[in-house]
């Protein structure tokens, strides 16, 4: 043993000796044994989460740089930097230092723009990643908790973004903070207290920039970083889902190994993401605070919007009718409070969906195959309905820009949004479900009759027919491998002993919902082997 070690020590290259040293303390060989050749499936839609992860890292890196120059203070100073149209203007130190970063620190503007563009892209990437997981049913057991972690990341990301947007203390963000304060005031009983405590007194006071700063750079990103780590650990533990295909089952994961392919691909992708964001920041201005001006609570500009991820909340507040109830010396500001409640509720609807679906199906098995959206028509329709509601509210949040750029009346757009917030999702649900069923039917036909080749043949008696090419075994498998649930049935009202069975209301509801998911008209039965044989053997091959 000892001699062996000695000879090894002499010959082992430096890298190995370092690894040995680390292994003795960290156990890295055991870790590497399990993970070095870990398999990741190849699909572009599996990389959306990576875009989010990498833009998050880009934001942290650039954010650290910005803290070197930013002064989170609301003390009033006069501007004497290099931007002429603000010379001598009164502004907070926060605004002044942001101007300094933008005009007097070399590369400061670039880093600021990377940081802000990165934030918009981070939230957008989380959104599409979440939708990918949703529409492929990748949130099913065992991944429900990871779905919630992801949702929390999106939710916290919105507030991290909002607090960051508020820090420069410019006229646009100040208006956003004012809106937030007005919304807090609408909370019954404790609203005024929360507002006073948050702002250190009346709005705007002199505290909120410093307080938002600690939330923006420490509290919220700290929690998010923890969640990201947990999210990734669970991805490793669960192993990635993969799409249905030949050789891909619920018990394996097919793809390329981490070392070397995914180290190069995922590692390289980080640089691609950073590079693209840097180029975007080179060519397009974001949040030009010099053009917007310093905050004054009595000034405002039209076109006052939050960043896109808060646009949906902005829409809710814009289109709500101005309901206000005055009773017994108190005011219930429903016109503001209802949107404030709807904001987490609408987002929460998508967050709790996995639990609702698993309750409806009663399925307790693990699922590692990412479904095709068409094969889960009711879920897909629900998701599209949700996106529709979200999108309609985004339109509501930008109603003034839509009005000026499409020559519409702002009042008509507001009414459109009011109606279609309710009608839009219903219409979207019905249409989506029909489209899904249509696609299922097409898959069904494709399996039985083959794919349309585009070749037209003329038969001896003059009839024209299109030649259909039979599918390969792999393609046939791909189109038929998805599972189809049988609709649930209520047990008979009387059991075998003639005793009346007690069926709870929730169980009745569950069965009803289950039937709407998997009953007649909600899925197209897969072709059976008999059907296939009858057709292929009967008709020859067209």
């Amino acid at each position, binding site marked *: 043993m000892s001699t062996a070690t000695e000879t090894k020590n002499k010959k082992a290259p430096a890298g190995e000796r370092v690894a040995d040293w680390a292994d003795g303390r960290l156990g890295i060989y055991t870790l590497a044994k399990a993970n070095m050749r870990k398999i990741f499936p*190849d699909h*572009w*839609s599996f*990389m959306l989460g*990576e*875009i989010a992860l990498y833009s998050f890292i880009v934001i942290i890196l650039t954010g650290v740089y910005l803290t070197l120059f930013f002064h989170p203070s609301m003390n009033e100073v006069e*501007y004497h930097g290099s931007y*002429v*149209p*603000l*010379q*001598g*203007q009164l502004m907070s130190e926060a605004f002044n230092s942001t101007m300094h970063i*933008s005009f007097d620190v070399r590369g400061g*503007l670039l880093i600021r*723009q990377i940081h802000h*563009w990165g934030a*918009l*892209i981070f939230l*957008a*990437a989380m959104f*599409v990643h979440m939708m990918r997981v949703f529409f492929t049913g990748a949130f099913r057991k065992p991944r429900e908790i990871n779905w919630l972690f992801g949702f929390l990341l999106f939710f916290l990301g919105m507030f991290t973004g909002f607090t960051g947007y508020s820090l420069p203390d410019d*006229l*646009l963000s100040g208006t956003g903070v004012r809106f937030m304060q007005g919304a807090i005031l609408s909370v019954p009983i404790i609203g005024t207290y929360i507002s006073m405590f948050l702002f250190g007194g009346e709005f705007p006071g002199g505290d909120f920039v410093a307080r938002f700063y600690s939330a923006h750079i420490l509290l919220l990103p700290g929690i998010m970083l923890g969640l990201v780590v947990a999210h990734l650990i669970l991805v490793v533990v669960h192993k990635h889902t993969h799409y249905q295909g030949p050789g891909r089952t619920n018990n394996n994961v097919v793809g390329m190994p981490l070392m070397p392919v995914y180290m190069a*691909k995922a590692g390289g*992708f980080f640089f*691609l*993401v950073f590079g*693209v964001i840097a180029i*975007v*920041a080179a060519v*397009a*201005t*974001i*949040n*030009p605070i010099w*053009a*917007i*001006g310093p905050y*004054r609570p*009595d*000034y*405002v*500009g*039209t*076109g006052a919007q939050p*960043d*896109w991820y808060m*646009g949906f909340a902005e829409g809710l507040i814009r289109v709500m009718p101005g309901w206000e109830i005055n009773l017994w010396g108190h005011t219930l500001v429903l016109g503001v409070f209802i949107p404030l409640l709807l904001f987490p509720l609408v987002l929460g609807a998508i967050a709790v969906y996995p639990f609702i679906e698993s309750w409806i199906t009663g399925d307790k098995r693990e699922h590692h195959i990412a479904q095709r959206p068409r094969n889960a028509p009711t879920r897909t329709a629900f998701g599209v309905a949700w996106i529709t509601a979200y999108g309609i509210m985004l339109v509501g949040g930008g109603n003034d*820009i839509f*009005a*000026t750029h499409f*020559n*519409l*009346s*702002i*009042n*008509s*757009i507001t009414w*459109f949004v009011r109606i279609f917030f309710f009608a839009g999702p219903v219409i979207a649900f019905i249409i989506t479900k029909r489209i899904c069923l249509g696609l299922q039917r097409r898959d069904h036909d494709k399996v039985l009759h083959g794919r349309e080749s585009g070749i037209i043949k003329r038969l001896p008696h003059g009839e024209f027919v299109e030649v259909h090419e039979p599918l390969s075994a792999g393609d046939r498998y791909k189109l038929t491998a998805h599972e189809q649930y049988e609709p649930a049935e209520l047990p008979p009202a009387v059991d075998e002993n003639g005793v009346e069975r007690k069926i709870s209301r929730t169980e009745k509801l569950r069965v009803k919902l289950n039937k709407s998911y998997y009953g007649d008209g909600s899925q197209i039965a897969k072709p059976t082997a008999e059907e296939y044989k009858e057709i292929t053997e009967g008709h020859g091959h067209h």
Partner: protein
Amino acid sequence: MKKLSARRRHPLAAVVVLLLALAATGGLYAAFAPAGTAKADETAQSLAIEEGKKLYTVGCASCHGTGGQGTTDGPSLVGVGSAAVDFQVGTGRMPAQQPGAQVPRKKVIYSQAEIDQLAAYVASLGAGPITPKAGQYSPDGADIAKGGDLFRNNCAQCHNFTGEGGALTHGKYAPNLANVSPKHLYEAMQTGPQNMPSFPDTTMPEKEKKDIIAYVQAVNSDRTETPGGFKLGALGPVSEGLFAWVFGLGALIACAVWVAAHTAKAKKS
């Protein structure tokens, strides 16, 4: 129903659907596009009143009445002053073309001499703001930063932070101030055209108007510096969000597709 299903695959089906969709979109647009009646106001000044009157009779009298007293189609021009005429006709808003929520800026159809004559005639109907002289509106030597502060207090609420314009009620709007001449900016503040309130010298002295004009020219013209790059219409977070989704996320998804795609195989077997 079955027939409809059968015809879905007809080669012309896509065209029919497209036409129906276009018709529906157009119908919806017509339903939501603002409609209303044109409102305008106008005025004039001294010497060539006679010439102005002739021009007036031909081009303006049908809406504003033969003596400028106003009709149901156009407001009275008594007392609007020559500055209002110079603005309205000089920016092409008058003569109005069609009824709508607001009379838009368009091609100017009178020469400056004719505009002056018209202005002289309308000014003779009753005293009002007088067309400013170059010394009054020239932004030379004005305080841009002071103008910016005044702009944010008095103008930005309708015209946006740097004068890109914005929406008002029922299809009315505050126009974009890019490339509006200093004289017309001055006249607009002085006279308050259409639904814009006026900012008379008594509450906003001439010097402050100059400051505002200097600011608008600095931040919203072809020469405006946008150090950060393309300014995306200077519309704020809506256009930024759209850009981030389409170009930012779009480019990254394109990268993802490339990263994950299978490399071309040697030969198709």
